[in-house]
Structures are given as C-alpha cells and as structure tokens.
C-alpha cells in the first residue's frame, strides 16, 4: 500500500471500528471487552481487504505463468543451481493445496526434474502463499513480511539442496519412476474471460479460509484485550535457548492452513514472545504437518519422509535462532 493511501485508509478503518464498538455496540471504552471487539473489527477489515488485493495479484501472475509452464521452464535447460531458486519461487506463487502435492510430486519427477529441486518446490509452496502474505502484511507490516517470504524461499532452496545431495531416490515409491506421462493429452484451455476467472478464483480462496481467519483474528483479539503486555516474557524469552526447538517440535503435529495461526502469533508477539520464536513456530505449523505426511506417504517411503521432515525441522530451528538475532535489529 502506498504511504498516501495508508495515511487515509488506516484511520478510516480505525474510525469505523471505533464507531461500531463504542457507538453502535455501545461498549465502555478502555474495557477489555471493548478493546477486544475493536481489535477484531479493525483487523478483520484490514486483513480481508489485503487478502482480496493479494489473491487477485497472484491470480494474474498465475494466468501468465501456470504450473505446467513453470515445470517446462525447469526442464528446458540446465540451470546450474539456479533451478533451486526457480523451483522455490514457483512454489511461492502457486497456491498450495495438500491434495495437489502428490500429482505435483509425480509430475515433477516424471518430467525428470531432480528430487532435490522437486523438494525445493514442495517445501516453499505451503510456507509462502497469498493468504499468509496478506495476513503478514496486515499484522506485522512490510518488513517482517519480506523477511518471512525470503526465508520461506531460502528454506526451500537449502532444504531441497540438502535432500538432493542425500541421494534418496531409491526411497521414492517405485511406481512413480514407472509412470509414463502422456503429455499430448493435456490441452487445457484458458477461461475466456480472464478477469472474471481471476476474481472468481480469488473469492474462492478467500471463502475457503475466511472462517479460519475470523477465528484466528478473534482469538488474537482476545489475547490482545485480556492478556497483560509482556505476560509471556517470563516464560519464553529470547535468552531461553530451548524456546525455539520446543516451539518448532510442538508445531509439527498441528495442522493449520497457516491462516488461523498468524493472528494468534501476532498477539503472542505483542505480549512478549520473541518474534523469531513465533515465526519458527508458525513455519513449522504450516510447512510440516502430520496429515500432509500421511498424504506424502503414498509416494515416499518412510526413510525419505523422515529425511524430509528432519531436514526441514532442523532448518526451521536454525531460522528461528537467526530471526531472534536479526529481527530485533531490523524492526
């Protein structure tokens, strides 16, 4: 958002949420309840407007760079290492749906894209997506968003590279190597009215995540309204060396569409949890989940799955420490 727009937009939303909270709902100002309600309204409006803009932008990008084109680009020539970056970037712009991860995995390997590159895509894809970005901009601002997105891409590159070097190809289920892809069968036409398609797609994505976001924002608002500032500092300070690994390990079994967690995390950060620890928690929640593992089990043997989870977990813990060191200086 440009500075000028922000200058007018934020106070406008604030005025509107004040009006709803204090005038329409007639809540007593400065009470926990009023703070919570006000926060909820303000954040919801801001997040949903950002969400709409960003899903639209991503939708347009995808029209011009659909996934099969990305794959063909990766196959088309030797990239000498830049393909890790490319694959992670592609992962960032495709919307992630865990039900698509298997066809993707098979389709990439079937096109003779190396396993490591495929992983670079697979790791970044759930971490960096339009919904997460919109929430990050709305809740944490630009700087943190950029740091987060770059880390997600870096994580995919490093994780993919390490997994590629481990030579784990034999732990991919055999039938995948035998899958013959009938390329000529694909002749997907584009919808005629591109604008309509993009808007519809954007609304579809928003509809899918709206409930999670509202619940997340509501829980975040409750924490904002009722938990005293600095409350968590006593338990999870940046000096506590175990905080990051514990947060990451706790997050793995959680399954969340990324979306519900972010407002809660932002509230926790406001109440004293170090940002780096919180970001590591969030990355682990989104990037590693048990339901996802169960789906991937259909194409990977457990050794590969374990290596995948292991490498990503360790990388996220490393990132968490790094965040705790650099973020306080940056923001």
């Amino acid at each position, binding site marked *: 958002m440009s500075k000028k727009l922000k200058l007018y937009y934020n106070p406008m939303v604030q005025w509107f949420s004040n009006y709803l909270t204090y005038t329409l709902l007639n809540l007593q100002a400065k009470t926990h309840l009023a703070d919570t309600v006000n926060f909820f309204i303000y954040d919801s409006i801001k997040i949903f407007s950002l969400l709409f803009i960003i899903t639209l932008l991503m939708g347009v990008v995808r029209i011009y760079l659909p996934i*099969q084109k990305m794959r063909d680009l990766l196959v088309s020539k030797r990239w000498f290492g830049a393909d890790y970056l490319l694959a992670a970037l592609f992962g960032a712009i*495709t919307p992630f749906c865990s*039900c*698509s991860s298997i*066809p*993707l995995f*098979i389709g990439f390997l079937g096109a003779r894209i190396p396993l490591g590159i495929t992983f670079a895509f697979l790791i970044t894809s759930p971490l960096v997506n339009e919904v997460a970005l919109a929430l990050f901009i709305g809740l944490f601002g630009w700087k943190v968003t950029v740091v987060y997105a770059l880390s997600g891409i870096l994580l995919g590159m490093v994780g993919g590279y390490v997994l590629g070097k481990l030579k784990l190809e034999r732990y991919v289920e055999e039938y995948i190597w035998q899958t013959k*892809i009938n390329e000529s069968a694909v*002749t*997907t036409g584009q919808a005629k009215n591109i604008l309509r398609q993009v808007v519809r797609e954007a609304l579809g994505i928003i509809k899918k995540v709206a409930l999670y976001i509202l619940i997340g924002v509501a829980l975040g608002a409750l924490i904002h309204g009722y938990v005293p500032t600095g409350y968590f500092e006593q338990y999870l300070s940046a000096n506590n060396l175990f905080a990051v690994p514990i947060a990451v390990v706790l997050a793995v079994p959680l399954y969340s569409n990324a979306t519900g967690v972010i407002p809660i995390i932002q509230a926790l950060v406001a109440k004293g949890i170090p940002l780096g620890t919180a970001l590591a928690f969030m990355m682990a929640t989104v990037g590693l989940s048990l339901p996802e593992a169960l789906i991937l089990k259909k194409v990977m043997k457990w050794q590969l799955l374990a290596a995948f989870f292991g490498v990503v977990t360790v990388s996220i813990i490393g990132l968490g420490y790094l965040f705790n060191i650099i973020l306080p200086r940056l923001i």
Partner: protein
Amino acid sequence: MIIKILGSGCPNCQRLESNAKQAVNELNLADVVFEKVTNYAEIARYGVLATPALVVDQQVKLFGRIADVKEIKTLLQPHGSMV
C-alpha cells in the same frame, strides 16, 4: 462420451463433478459415462500437476481449478452429439 474427474476425492473434486454433471444435463448429452479417478499413479499419467482435473474422452480439458457449469459446457461442446 467418457468424462473423468481426476482427484483424490477432496471437496474441490466433488464440486467439479457436480458442475460437470449439471453441464451434461443442460446440454442434453446422451451416452455420457462418468468416471472418478482417485489413483494417484493414474492421475499422474494424464500429465496433470494439480487436481481436480476434467478429462473428456482421454483429453485433459482443465486442471487445478474448478470450472463453473457454463465453462464446462463450452469445453464439452466439440464432443457433444448435439453439435
């Protein structure tokens, strides 16, 4: 005509299927057989990178998104017995 819906059975695939069925109804197409393909190896064989996908007479018409009834109708037309 054989219409296949490729996908693991997630809600998106079901929506695509119901849209496709409605499109077939609205076009009054005869001799249409619907098939669901949930086996991943088979889905991948179509070169599809994202589900759900719509396959008409072994031609992948659409994948990675849900099309509405109107769009599916135009996708079905060249094959239809009405045309």
